[in-house]
């Protein structure tokens, strides 16, 4: 692959106290590529992401990024302080990158243009996730790092959100590193799945990983099977407001 390598982490080890959280983990993210981290709770997914972001320093191993790499980060959760008045517009303007797209356009891109002047505290959990995605995009990022982007979003909304992330990748040609529990939903759009449980259990294209013995051992055969074959179709879709929108080619 001759695409630019955005993150090249080699042999990362990390421990908190005596607890080995990451053992000899390698991770590469290229431009235009979606890499998904899956794994059980406490497997070290968030720790690995925090190392990639530079928030944590690993005990050993090296991590290489191109100089001046612009990262758009979407944290797992945003606690909105009740005493702080903050509109969506002001929140996005806080960190807006000089050569980023205008805020209006970013909001349209994640389909929440109507929320521009809303208070952050007044919008729903699913809308807040999109605001966070918009904030990450406002950095005009070369790499998007998303920590469970679909958390607190209903199933239909999750599929739509992953579709949106895919569109963003195609439009901006950025690399995407995300943590997700929903392999069945991200399968269609992910290029590379890394199954992590302190060490890398298996990795590869999603259809390979979902039948890999170590993946099956981790998630249970029945669970993995239902996840892997869980695809069904509605004859209509909902947008983020819950309004029915007709399928384009249905």
């Amino acid at each position: 692959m001759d695409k630019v390598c955005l993150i090249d982490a080699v042999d990362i080890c990390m421990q908190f106290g005596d607890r080995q959280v990451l053992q000899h983990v390698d991770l590469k993210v290229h431009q235009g590529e979606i890499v998904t981290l899956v794994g059980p709770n406490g497997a070290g997914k968030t720790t690995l992401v925090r190392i990639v972001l530079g928030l944590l320093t690993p005990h050993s191993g090296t991590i290489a990024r191109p100089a001046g790499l612009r990262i758009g980060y979407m944290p797992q959760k945003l606690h909105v302080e009740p005493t702080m008045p903050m509109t969506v517009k002001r929140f996005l303007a806080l960190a807006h990158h000089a050569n980023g797209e205008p805020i209006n356009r970013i909001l349209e891109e994640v389909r929440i243009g109507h929320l521009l002047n809303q208070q952050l505290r007044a919008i729903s959990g699913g809308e807040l996730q999109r605001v966070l995605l918009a904030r990450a995009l406002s950095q005009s990022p070369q790499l998007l790092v998303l920590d469970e982007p679909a958390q607190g979003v209903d199933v239909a909304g999750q599929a739509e959100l992953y579709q949106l992330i895919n569109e963003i990748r195609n439009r901006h040609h950025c690399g995407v590193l995300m943590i997700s529990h929903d392999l069945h939903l991200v399968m269609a759009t992910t290029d590379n799945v890394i199954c992590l449980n302190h060490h890398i259990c298996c990795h590869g294209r999603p259809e390979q990983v979902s039948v890999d013995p170590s993946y099956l051992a981790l998630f249970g055969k029945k669970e993995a099977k239902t996840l892997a074959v869980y695809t069904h179709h509605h004859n209509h879709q909902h947008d983020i407001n819950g309004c029915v929108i007709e399928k384009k080619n249905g």
Partner: protein
Amino acid sequence: MADFIVRALLAGICIALVAGPLGSFVVWRRMSYFGDTLAHSSLLGIALGILMDVNLQLAVIVSSLLFALILVLLQTRKTLSTDTLLGILAHSTLAFGLLILSLSNTVQVNLVAYLFGDLLTIGSSDLYWIMGSTAVIGILLAVFWNSFLTITVHEELAQVEGVQVGRVHCLMVLMVALLIAVSMKIVGVLLITSLLIIPPAAARRLASTPEQMAIGASIAGCLAVSLGLLMSYRLDTPAGPSIVVTACFFFLVTYLSPALLGKRSQ
């Protein structure tokens, strides 16, 4: 009007102007107990200043800044929970300060003035200290406004986006320490955090952006200081309590007015 009341008014308004925005951060970042601890410890600064026979204002400023740095360091260690740590330090430094003052019987110190504020004690050199310090705080607020807001909303997000979170937080704490150090003569050690907390709380209901809340807090603070000092001058009440009672009145008005007008609260 007498000279001293004009000086007190000028000083009070300078303080209230920067206490609005800075106090908003104290509210948003839940640092009110932190401010209280700094205020209590500044009495120790006074006591040490008297003991070593140096300029009292300078002694209070230096000791407050040092103490703020120590607090930030101790907080990052995380050996004790923050509120326990602050509780220990707030009251032990206050106690130490009072002990030293009572033992050094060479100088008569008007303790009540330091604890509750006294506008009669504001001399012209005090006024210069206050004007200079609040000007520095105001400039720093303007320069670092976006960084302060960014780390307040989400520290890790700020760090990924290139803000030096540790340094910015430390700077903010030092600014709070400086403001407390210079304004203790007017409002007093025991009441000073209320000037940081109550005006932003009063402005909260009426604001829809952080900037509106900060400016609203400045206005509420200036009104509280002016009316409070007027009350203190006319009725011969202590300055600090008069200002705080007035600020509290503003808070109650904005807090209760939506309910009284029958509007739905936010």
